[in-house]
Every structure is written in C-alpha cells, then in structure tokens.
C-alpha cells in the first residue's frame, strides 16, 4: 500500500498506488524489463550487421538506430503491461476502484515510462561502450525523456485499446507507429543535433515539437481514456 498517508488528493494517491504495484510486481517477476532489454540488445546487434556501423558514419546513424530500438522495445513493454492487467481480470478490479479513471491511465503511463527509461538507461551505456560514442550528454538525455513521454502517453492509451481487441498483440504497433511519427522524427533529429554538436538554433525546433506533442497528447489521453475503459 501507499506509505505516505499525508497525500491529500485521492487521485495522486491512486496513481502512486498503481505505479507502486507495477514496480513491485516487476521487481518480483522481472518479466517485462528483462524481455525489453534483451530485445533491445538484439535489435542493436542486428543493426550492427545490417548497416555496418562504421566509425565515420556512427554519429549520424546512432540516433536512428537508438530510436528504432526504443520504439520496438517499447511496444513489447506496453503490450505486456496491459495484457497482464487484462488477462487476470486486474483491469476490471482497477476500474471498480472508487477513483477517477484518468488516475488509472496516469498510473499505468508512469510505470510504463519508468520501465522504458530503465531499459534505455541500461542500453545507452552498453551502446556507448560498444561503439565508442559518448551518449551521456544532458541535452540528449532531455530529448530521450521528452521523446519517451510522448511515446508512452500515446502508447499507453492505444495499448489499453489494443488489449480489448481480438488481434491484440499485433495491433499495437500498427496503431501506434503512424501517430507517433512526429515524436520519432523530432527525437531522432534532436538527438543527432546533440551528437553532432550542431548549434542550438537547429535543435530548438525539434525540442519544441516534442514538448508540444507531449502536452497535446497527455491532454487528449486524459480526455478520452474514459471512453476506452468504460463498460
């Protein structure tokens, strides 16, 4: 249970409880993060053979490789995180709880974001070592945070839709990828801006797009999540 009883807002408490539940469950089973992690490393391995990451091209190709990897691994995590709720009837239990429905969305989104960031934080250093590229730049980390927020905001919404369909696992990437093109484009461009040390005035437009996308889609998800989980 939530340890801090002083939190006055019941929604914040509910969000905290859901995040806590997901993190504890993950800590015990380690299903989700390990799958995402191994998958990410495999994708990078495949990229290594597919496009030969030669030293002179690396800085230019790295952002693309990284974001494709994160996007693919992200769908694994999103699918799994929602399927667990749906399969054992946990989602119905959550919906019966006397809290605002959007609290469930934000709770799931935050734990999904946590999983994704944990995986990214392990993959990045490995990538840095393998390809001798310094990925630990504050600007790049900011881009990764903003990009992940946008990805997860839409992804959590669509995955809660996808698990309620017959074709569930197959459907999520198909639904998700066309609508997150702006996130991927902006994230790749901003990341390569930082990796290639481009002047800030070329990077700002991308960061602005990421921020705008995040704000817009968090607001939309907040408004429409009720329609997805009702009944």
């Amino acid at each position: 249970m939530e340890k801090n009883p002083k939190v006055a807002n019941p929604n914040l408490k509910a969000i905290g409880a859901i995040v806590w539940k997901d993190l504890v469950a993950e800590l015990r089973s380690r299903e989700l993060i390990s799958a995402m992690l191994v998958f990410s490393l495999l994708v990078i391995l495949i990229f290594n053979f597919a496009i030969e990451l030669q030293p002179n091209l690396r800085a230019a190709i790295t952002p693309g490789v990284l974001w494709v990897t994160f996007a693919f691994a992200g769908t694994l995590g999103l699918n799994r995180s929602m399927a667990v709720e749906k399969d054992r009837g946990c989602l119905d239990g959550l919906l019966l709880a006397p809290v605002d429905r959007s609290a469930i969305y934000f709770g799931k989104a935050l734990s999904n974001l946590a999983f994704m960031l944990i995986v990214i934080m392990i993959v990045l250093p490995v990538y840095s070592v393998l390809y001798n590229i310094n990925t630990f730049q504050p600007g790049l980390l900011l881009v990764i945070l903003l990009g992940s927020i946008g990805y997860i905001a839409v992804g959590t919404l669509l995955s809660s839709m996808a698990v309620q369909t017959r074709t569930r696992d197959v459907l999520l990437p198909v639904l998700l990828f066309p609508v997150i093109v702006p996130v991927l484009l902006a994230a790749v461009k901003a990341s390569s801006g930082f990796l290639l040390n481009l002047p800030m005035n070329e990077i700002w437009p991308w960061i602005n797009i990421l921020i705008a996308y995040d704000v817009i889609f968090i607001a939309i998800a907040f408004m429409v999540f009720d329609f997805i989980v009702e009944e």
Partner: protein
Amino acid sequence: MNRQPKALIYLTILSVILFLGALAMVFLYAPLEVVMNYVQKVFYFHISNAWVGMLGFVAAAVAGVIYLITRELKWDIVEMAAVEISTVFFLIAIISGSIWAKPTWGTYWLWDARLTTATILEMIYLSYFLLRQGIEDQERRARFGAVYTLIGAVSVPVTFLSIRIWQTIHPVVIGGGSSAQDSFGMTSPMLLTMLFCLFTFSVIFATLLWYRVRLGNLAEQVEQLKQKITQ
C-alpha cells in the same frame, strides 16, 4: 423497404454532369501550361482528390467526436463512410501526384511534407480498418474507432508541421523540390478550372457519402432482422 430518396437520385445525376463538365473544362477550356504541357492537366484532378481526402478526414473526426458525445450509432456509420471514401480518394491523389512528379521532378517520389503526410494519413486509415476488424462488439468498435480518428486528426497536423521543419533544415535533394508545385503561375482560366474541379469533387464526395451511409444503415437493419430471426 425504404427506396432510394429522390434527392439522392438527382444528386447522382448532378455529380455525373458536373464530372463530365469538369473533364471538358480540364481538356478543352484550361490552357496548356508552358513548361509542363499536358502533364499539368493531372494537377486539377489530383488536387481535387486530395481535397476530398481532407474533407473526409475532417468529416470523420467530427463525426467521431459527435458519436462520443451522443452515442448514436448513425454517427459511427458516417465516420466509417467518410474514412472509407477518403482512403480511396487519398490513394488516387497520391498515385496521380506520383504520375505528375515523374516528368516534373524527375522522380516518382520525394519525401516532401505533403506527400509524406498524405502517406502517413493513409497508413492511419489502414490501421483504423484493422482496429475495427479486430472488435466484434458493435458499441465498442464504434467507441474505439471514434477515439482513433480523433487521435489521428490531432497527430496529422503535427506530423505535417514536423516534416515541414525537417524540409527547411534538410537540404533539398533534387532541384526545385517542394516549391516546384507552387512555381507555375496560374492563369485565370486555370484557376477557374481548378475551382470548378474542387466543387465537382465536393459534390461527388457528398453523393458517395450519402450512398455509403445509406448502405451502412441498411446493413444495420439487416443485422437487426437477423437477430430477430435467431431469437
């Protein structure tokens, strides 16, 4: 049962007449463009198809929102009809654009903001059909469809904007590039022809939408009759 309404028959006849008129205007009235010659004639129908695609896109999003508010099934039928029609028209617009691009730009395809956004929009529509296919429950199908068109409607302008920024920062690969489309000056007969084509295709869109909605309503009635028999 209910027969085709008189107004719909008149509208169909009007569409055919207007379409023949538009053809005549394109080939007989509009002057030949100096540089592009006959190739430029594709432009009139290309832009009209794209216009109908956008019209259907907006109509679908609006119908989706109205459905979420009113929960009346007829709005779901309108939304589905609009998406179906604009999928076809957008496909025609993309293909006719490529036909125009080959002699003008020297290539069938450029990653121009309009082209790319149109393609992503087309992908969103295809995902929309896949989503609907995966859901048996009618009410849920309508709800999810409406939410997805809404998400699509919000993401497409952001996509367009981000690709535009990508274009302006990114050097144009082939001479002229995205500005080529705007580069020919339109004489007033050309402009008149274009406006007439836009009007014609809007009427055709309205006619097709009416037919498709009627079809949807009839299918719904058949479904109800079937249920009556089985009970």
